[in-house]
């Protein structure tokens, strides 16, 4: 064959029509992360032929973090496999959590083959695109341009999300869906998520059904199943999630949700088996290993719990997503295996590792210490831990989250520190007076402590206290005494800082005060603070979304930040 003698004809470089807003990739600042020097050089050459001048390189996750901490990059090309230390996903997670990258930064994850992670689609921190080696200049340019245009489309929506104004974000999605065929499905997916976050599953369901009319997308099927799960239709949810897995064995999120469905049906064994399968398919998720460990502990499967907690600690070593739970769980396992010495060692490690980011670590390790002693039959030391805990509770008004409170109260009863236990449960009821499931749980704790009547009486009194606080504020509001109502709710909030009903009503009263008496920046920011606090306590409530939207609409347009008009 003598092909080379033929005249050389350059084929079309691009069939994509040049759009007016072509991106200038020459001026951007790039970071290339790969442990293989040859690949770094190759990528650098490719970037240079796009005109790039500012290209930094890192050969490991640690080195990349060092650079990211100092320099704001426009584009990051990061290999998923980086040898020992952090992997690409962990670098991405840490960069996002520590705010080392801008929302506009393009993050491309590179791997040698199609990765499981790239189709899970549910990970909290996703790169803008996954690229498979070998990467040629043209592929790089195509993907960079695509991601850039996508970011333009989603810029305003992402901003509204960041401000937690989910309803505004959803409206922006609708406007875009009408004109943008290319991103239609992605926008629909976003809108469905926003509807879920705003506590409107019915509207989310409509969106998923609209997608499925077009094509069989497993994320839409999983979305419908999630709504069933939230509605308490556990059996239907189970079937739907299993259907998703049958279609795509790597849709890992469906496993986590399926396990949750089983758990809600009281089928812990099945839930554990599913999580174990998911952990096998995608073993590098700190969260999944942690959930598996906790579930195994509940099941009394110490071998499985130990394995999961150890794996969780091992992968967490380089991950910003790590939490003390695996250490505390593993300490419990050691206690059950009659090795309290190793348990205490783990608790010390946890105290050292998490002292900075987890202010409640002292309390939590002390609770675990008490449980370990109690479960291994050392009642004297368990009682000592109970006394320490009582002293710690007295020293501060801060209380841990509800599950920790319940665990702590149970322990305190078990070791005979009754007063502190009752006081703690009183706090729980006052802050959750309208949550019947929780009231039942608290009553159960009293029953187990052989104090059923005390429980009934305490719950009734605390419930009434909280209800009175709220009703008085609402009465003032309804009778038009707005100023007094705001002041009353402010005090109520001090008395019961984590009561969602009271917090929502406080925000509601402040919003109507702003509506009727004109905008006041201090009052608005107080309302925002309250709403963010409720959202932190329990995300995804409809009232949160509605009040956030009302508040943002009240904001005077002068500063332009809140009500940026749609282009």
């Amino acid at each position, binding site marked *: 064959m003598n*092909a*080379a*003698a*033929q*005249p*050389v*004809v*350059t*084929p*079309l*470089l*691009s*069939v*994509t*029509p040049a759009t007016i807003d072509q991106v200038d990739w020459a001026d951007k600042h790039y970071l290339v992360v790969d442990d*293989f020097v*040859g*690949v770094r*050089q*190759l990528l650098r*050459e*490719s970037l240079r032929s796009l005109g790039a001048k500012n290209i930094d390189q890192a050969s490991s996750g640690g080195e990349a973090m060092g650079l990211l901490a100092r320099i704001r990059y426009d584009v990051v090309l990061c290999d998923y*496999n980086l040898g020992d230390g952090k992997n690409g996903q962990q670098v991405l997670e840490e960069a996002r959590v520590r705010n080392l990258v801008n929302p506009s930064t393009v993050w491309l994850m590179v791997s*040698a*083959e*199609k*990765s*499981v992670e*790239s*189709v899970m689609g549910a990970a909290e921190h996703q790169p803008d695109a996954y690229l*498979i*080696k*070998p*990467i*040629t*200049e*043209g*592929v790089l*340019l*195509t993907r960079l341009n*695509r991601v850039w245009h996508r970011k333009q489309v989603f810029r305003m929506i992402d901003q509204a999300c960041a401000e937690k104004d989910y309803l505004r974000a959803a409206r922006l999605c609708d406007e875009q869906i009408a004109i943008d*065929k*290319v991103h*239609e*499905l992605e926008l629909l997916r976003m809108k469905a998520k926003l509807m879920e976050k705003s506590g409107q599953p019915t509207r989310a369901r409509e969106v998923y059904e609209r997608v499925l009319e077009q*094509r*069989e*997308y497993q994320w839409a099927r999983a979305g419908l199943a999630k709504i069933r799960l939230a509605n308490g239709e556990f059996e239907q949810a189970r079937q739907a999630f299993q259907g998703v897995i*049958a*279609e*795509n*064995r*790597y849709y890992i999120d469906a496993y986590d949700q399926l396990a949750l469905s089983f758990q809600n049906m009281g089928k812990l064994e099945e839930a554990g088996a599913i999580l174990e399968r998911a952990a*096998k398919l995608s073993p590098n998720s700190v969260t999944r290993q942690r959930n598996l460990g906790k579930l195994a502990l509940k099941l009394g499967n110490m071998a499985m719990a130990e394995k999961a907690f150890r794996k969780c600690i091992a992968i967490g070593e380089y991950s910003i997503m790590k939490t003390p739970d695996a250490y505390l769980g593993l300490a419990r396992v050691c206690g059950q295996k009659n090795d309290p010495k190793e348990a205490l060692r783990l608790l010390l490690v946890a105290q050292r590792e998490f002292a900075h980011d987890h202010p409640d670590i002292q309390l939590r390790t002390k609770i675990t210490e008490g449980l370990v002693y109690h479960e291994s039959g050392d009642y004297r030391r368990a009682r000592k831990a109970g006394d320490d805990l009582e002293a710690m509770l007295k020293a501060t008004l801060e209380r841990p989250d509800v599950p920790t409170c319940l665990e702590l109260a149970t322990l305190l009863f078990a070791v005979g520190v009754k007063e502190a236990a009752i006081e703690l449960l009183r706090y729980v009821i006052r802050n959750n007076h309208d949550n019947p499931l929780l009231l039942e749980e608290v009553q159960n704790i009293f029953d187990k402590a052989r104090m059923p009547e005390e429980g009934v009486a305490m719950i009734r009194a605390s419930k009434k206290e909280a209800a009175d606080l709220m009703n008085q504020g609402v009465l003032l509001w309804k009778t038009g005494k707005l100023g007094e109502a705001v002041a009353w709710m402010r005090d109520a909030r001090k008395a019961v800082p984590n009561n969602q009903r009271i917090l929502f009503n406080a925000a509601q009263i402040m919003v109507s005060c702003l509506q009727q008496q004109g905008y006041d920046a201090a009052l608005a920011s107080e309302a925002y603070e309250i709403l963010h606090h409720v959202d932190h306590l329990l995300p995804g409530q409809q009232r949160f979304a509605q009040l956030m939207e009302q508040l943002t609409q009240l904001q005077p347009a002068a500063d332009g930040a809140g009500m940026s008009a749609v282009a």
Partner: protein
Amino acid sequence: MDDTPNAHELFLFLASTAHDMKNSISVLSGTLERLLVAQSPDTSSKVEPAYTQMAHMLYQTKRLNDNLMQLLALYKQVGKPEYPFDVQPLELGQLVDQVVSMERVLLQSRGIQLELDCDPRLIWHFDEDLIVGVLSHAINNAVHYTCNRVRLAIREQDGWLELRVEDNGPGYPPALLKAGEIATRETAGGVNFLTNSAGLGLYFSSEVAKMHRHRGRHGTLRLENGGKYGGGCFILRLP
């Protein structure tokens, strides 16, 4: 996948070796492309034999990469639910751009003209990485059979997307057409890898085609002679 610890370790070992091989091939083909672009002769001067040899090296490297990619995909059980299959809507312009950019230097260095015929604004749903892989493999193959022209034509027809890679060579030999028939047969297990070096690519491509399903239909693959130039035609149809 097997559940024994040994199988798992073997898998990790294979995965990291494959990762390494991919890196080497990336560097090899990237460097060759760069050298070829730097050395590309203008139309008046005579083509150096070294240039022709380098062009052939690039062709072989592409084959190596295709084979590795296909083996990896088969190891990951392409065609089965075990494969991380990922369908997304995509404009055809984006698809064609990537295929062209992967093949540009090879085609240029072999003096082959690529003709494109598609509506870049048309949106279709498919696994981008797999289809880019299938199309660039088909073009690499066409490089072997063509005289000097390859045509990539994509169009929508009766609810199907038809993607054709045609060349102006003498057409596929009967043995290859036969292999194509076997590899794309409905019933599984039709490939004879031992007697057919082209078997792997065909088998891979037809598995990829079958994975794409919509409303009870699935994608198909066909080899024939004819088309616009009367040479070999590689025809992928996606629902």
